[in-house]
């Protein structure tokens, strides 16, 4: 009996001490401080805490909207707008919304870049965001298939991701601006040879066609007596010149491609030379020089296309 009583007592004592300690620790910041001040330990201060959990999954470019075949615009840039969707298993908030961009590339051509694509609202869903991308294509950019590359990354994982599975077709544009100015031959003597023009025709390629330049000439009929004519075959054309005042064989254009009445003739060595005309230095240009190698024996009058029809420069 006494042993039981002793045990009970010990239990009560331990319980009391435990309860006391519990009460002290819950209410006595001051006591703790006082105690710590004795021991030299640092005092306790309330501390705000926040924990940001970063996603570990990488983003994915899951969609690039189809781009229909697109025509260049004469002497201008063509703006192409399309959508890109980026997905992250960790949610839209983990996406880096200023990382998305796109580019168009083709072998042998200058790559075209979009800059940063703009986020669009609403999001596709809680894990996929929508972005609008804009790329400008030049009028001289080559016709054919262009590869589309879209890229972006997220915040948590940080790895760059790409989508290169799509492409679009850039159409062909045959376009030019010709500026012959007012071309006049100097006084020509019947029977003379190698009469060159004082200036030349400039063909500016305002599209992306790459190929030979052709010319269709017609006989020039006399305006006073239209039974007389200067045959187209009396003319020659070349991309090179012997220069002003050239004489005989020095006049390269007089040995150029002979013209044929009513027939499209490819000018030997010519090239439409697509390029950025604003760059200067001959980019996008070709020059054509004319010559009458042998002046025919004709009466004195004006010979022109007034009744026969115009000449035509073509691609």
């Amino acid at each position: 009996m006494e042993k039981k009583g002793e045990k009970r007592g010990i239990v009560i004592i331990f319980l009391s001490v435990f309860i006391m300690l519990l009460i002290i620790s819950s209410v006595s910041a001051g006591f703790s401080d006082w105690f710590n001040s004795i021991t030299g330990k640092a005092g306790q201060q309330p501390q705000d805490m926040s924990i940001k959990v970063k996603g570990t999954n990488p983003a994915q470019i899951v969609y690039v909207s189809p781009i229909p075949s697109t025509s260049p615009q004469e002497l201008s840039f063509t703006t192409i707008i399309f959508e890109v969707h980026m997905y992250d298993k960790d949610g839209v908030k983990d996406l880096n919304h200023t990382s998305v961009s796109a580019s168009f590339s083709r072998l042998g051509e200058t790559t075209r870049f979009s800059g940063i694509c703009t986020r669009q609202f609403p999001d596709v869903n809680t894990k996929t965001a929508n972005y609008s991308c804009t790329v400008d294509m030049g009028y001289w950019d080559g016709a054919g298939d262009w590869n589309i590359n879209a890229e972006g990354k997220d915040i948590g994982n940080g790895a760059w991701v790409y989508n290169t599975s799509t492409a679009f077709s850039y159409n062909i544009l045959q376009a030019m601006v010709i500026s012959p100015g007012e071309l006049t031959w100097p006084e020509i003597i019947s029977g003379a040879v190698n009469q060159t023009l004082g200036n030349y025709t400039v063909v500016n390629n305002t599209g992306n066609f790459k190929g030979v330049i052709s010319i269709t000439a017609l006989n020039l009929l006399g305006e006073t007596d239209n039974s007389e004519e200067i045959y187209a075959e009396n003319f020659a054309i070349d991309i090179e010149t012997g220069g002003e005042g050239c004489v005989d064989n020095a006049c390269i254009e007089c040995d150029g491609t002979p013209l044929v009445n009513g027939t499209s003739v490819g000018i030997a060595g010519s090239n439409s030379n697509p390029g950025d005309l604003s760059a200067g230095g001959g980019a996008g240009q070709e020059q054509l020089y004319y010559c009458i190698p042998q002046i025919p024996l004709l009466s004195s009058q004006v010979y022109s296309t007034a009744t026969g029809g115009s000449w035509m420069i073509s691609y």
Partner: protein
Amino acid sequence: MKNKIILAFASIFLVLVLTALAIAWGVSSPYWDKGASEPSPLEMYSMETKTVELNIQNMAGNEDIAVKAEIKKGAEIASLEKDTYSLDLGTSENVPLTITAPLTAGTYKVEVEFKTITSGGAGGVAMGTGYTTSFDVIVSEKPEEKPKSAGTLIWAILAVVIIAIAVVVYLIIKKKK
């Protein structure tokens, strides 16, 4: 000499005025056979009809233009709604070109010529511009559609019914136990 033809020393005042015309226009096409790194032909099935949208542009010149279109090759399979187009400065217009593929498979050429309509120009030589849009049309035979097998469908339905009966029987037996 009466019969003497006095020519050799006669001066011919030959004035060829190539009038300066800032003619600027163009034609765009989604199909071509030249002018780029590789051709872009149109692919069709026999007896199929497609409309190819060509596009005439007058964006970079300084005057309105009139353009004449003419099919030079492939008239047996290609047709235009009209042959004359007037474009104000700063505008473009689609030119629908309808292609009907023939019965016989093969490669056919379509060639359309576009040229400006210009006056002859008294006292000078008027210079116009033109483009020939050409491309290949590759015609192939349309693959035959396989007819749906009625027998296969019936067997599939039978299988489902048998499985359903078996499940019901199993459940009934199980319940009795």
